[in-house]
């Protein structure tokens, strides 16, 4: 039987991955094995059920959030607050810390644990002030030569009246533009929901990773179902159609690697999840450490400018 088109694509992707320096280390090589297994078992495409399971795991309320990883990965964490103009948006955290003795800047959305914190942090949906805070901290890192780590976990940017008045769209664009100008190494990882513009605002990085059960999408499954099926209840169908899971994002070249999670998902063992995430981030930062800044920037722009499928 001739191999299916999908199998060919997966094989091609696999061979590209094998040649990637990123996969030299243990953790992401583990991912390579996983991909190989997936290929072996044929019908390797994640099923609609598996995709939906990732949607549920990505949104699991016990899933580790940005600050859970900060606590486990960074020493001397010092959170920086405020956009220096209007507000301190608690949906976005930003700060400095030490990763293996080197100073890094970290930005990321933060959902809340209990009802009160969730309201305060608006479930990780940033206002323009949150992106402005992230931008100023990334620019600070750029001035001082610190690598930037970005952890993406948001259903999307906050859709509010004030958010629009204060230029939500323009701020998301400006934040991407800041990232396209940085001359320090940058790594982004989607650790839960990578929701649309709210996610990409802090994800224009040299290397983009996703945790195994994270999702990354142009619109929420419910939003897509509402528009195309006129029924938010069709979210499962929508997710199956636009495939927000990590395996598909890897296949499309949108991400560079998948960070494994402990069995059952990151929430089952946050310490192990943090260790795996830390390993992946270290590997990327080591790989990028010796690349000159303008070369990093050139490659980063070229990476994103190559994305898309057309004839």
């Amino acid at each position: 039987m001739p191999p299916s088109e999908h199998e060919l694509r997966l094989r091609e992707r696999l061979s590209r991955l094998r040649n990637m320096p990123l996969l030299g280390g243990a953790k992401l090589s583990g991912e390579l094995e996983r991909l190989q297994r997936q290929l072996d078992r044929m019908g390797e495409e994640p099923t609609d059920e598996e995709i939906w399971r990732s949607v549920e795991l990505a949104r699991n309320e016990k899933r580790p959030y940005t600050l859970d990883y900060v606590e486990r990965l960074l020493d001397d964490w010092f959170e920086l607050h405020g956009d220096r103009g209007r507000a301190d948006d608690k949906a976005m955290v930003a700060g400095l810390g030490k990763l293996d003795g080197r100073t890094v800047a970290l930005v990321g959305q933060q959902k809340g644990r209990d009802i009160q914190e969730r309201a305060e942090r608006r479930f990780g949906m940033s206002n323009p002030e949150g992106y402005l805070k992230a931008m100023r901290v990334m620019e600070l890192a750029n001035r001082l030569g610190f690598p930037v780590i970005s952890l993406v976990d948001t259903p999307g940017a906050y859709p509010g009246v004030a958010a629009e008045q204060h230029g939500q769209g323009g701020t998301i664009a400006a934040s991407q533009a800041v990232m396209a100008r940085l001359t320090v190494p940058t790594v982004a990882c989607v650790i839960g929901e990578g929701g649309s513009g709210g996610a990409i605002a802090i994800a224009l990085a040299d290397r983009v990773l996703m945790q195994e059960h994270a999702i990354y999408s142009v619109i929420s499954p419910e939003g897509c179902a509402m528009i195309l099926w006129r029924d938010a209840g069709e979210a499962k169908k929508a997710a199956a159609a636009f495939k927000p899971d990590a395996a598909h994002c890897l296949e499309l070249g949108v991400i560079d690697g998948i960070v494994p999670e402990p069995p059952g998902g990151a929430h089952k063992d946050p310490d192990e999840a943090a260790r795996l995430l830390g390993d992946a981030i270290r590997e990327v930062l080591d790989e990028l450490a010796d690349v000159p800044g303008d070369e990093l920037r050139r490659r980063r722009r070229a990476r994103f400018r190559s994305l898309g499928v057309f004839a």
Partner: protein
Amino acid sequence: MAKIDVSVETDDKPVPPPKHPNTCPSCNSHYRDDELEQALWVCSHCGHHFPMRARARIASLADEGSFLEEAADLHSEDPLGFFDLRPYTERLAEAEMKTGLTDAMVIGQASLDGRQCELAIMDFSFMGGSMGSVVGEKFSRACDSAAERGVPLISVTGSGGARMQEGILALMQLPKTVAAIEDLHDSGRAMISVMAHPTTGGVLASFATLGDVLLAEPGALMSFAGPRVVQQLTREKLPDDFGLAEQNLRFGNLDAIVPRPELRPTLSKLLRLFDAPV
């Protein structure tokens, strides 16, 4: 999941029957095709701006015979095999038939009052002006063409946002166009962005708001999230001018609102200003 409750106050009003495309939605004046074309699709009674097609826009801005289209043969593919109520490929074919375009953006070289520029013009009638891989690639090439020739880029947008049928690749067109503009800016060239109704979602959150000068047409909706989404989530009563160009001007998100008949002279002036030796 339960259906989203949409029973917010203003949604209870009965929906009026759809109007003829040549009938002004705000004052009900009706026009013949040639009258509208003559008036640049602006209602001569109340000033309402009807949607303007990409080819007509180019004809209204470029010097006669100066437009040289680029990347005209780019076509969308269907990377996800996307199927909602109908296959994406079918929607694409239908949009092509309806609009005579291959996707929602037309790019090319032009001159305006004798000054060279690059145009990137969107067409809302092609799948709601949604941005997928072809729009992203065309915009990216327009930036390169402008940089290579050392001329400013003028974009005119009309878009509902990213094209859902291309999934995550549609989202990736945001950073793609942003990176292209950064390359253009590094070459020392300017971009002028004109936002027509509507410029929302992913197009607003990427290249449309990164121009060196930001213009909008009167009454253009320029919001990241649509009014319905905002109302459903926040349950706030929306201001009457929610997300409109007028509100954006007041809040400092725009340089100017330019009525369509004044757009060409305005752009001409800006090209004169940008036409400095480098």
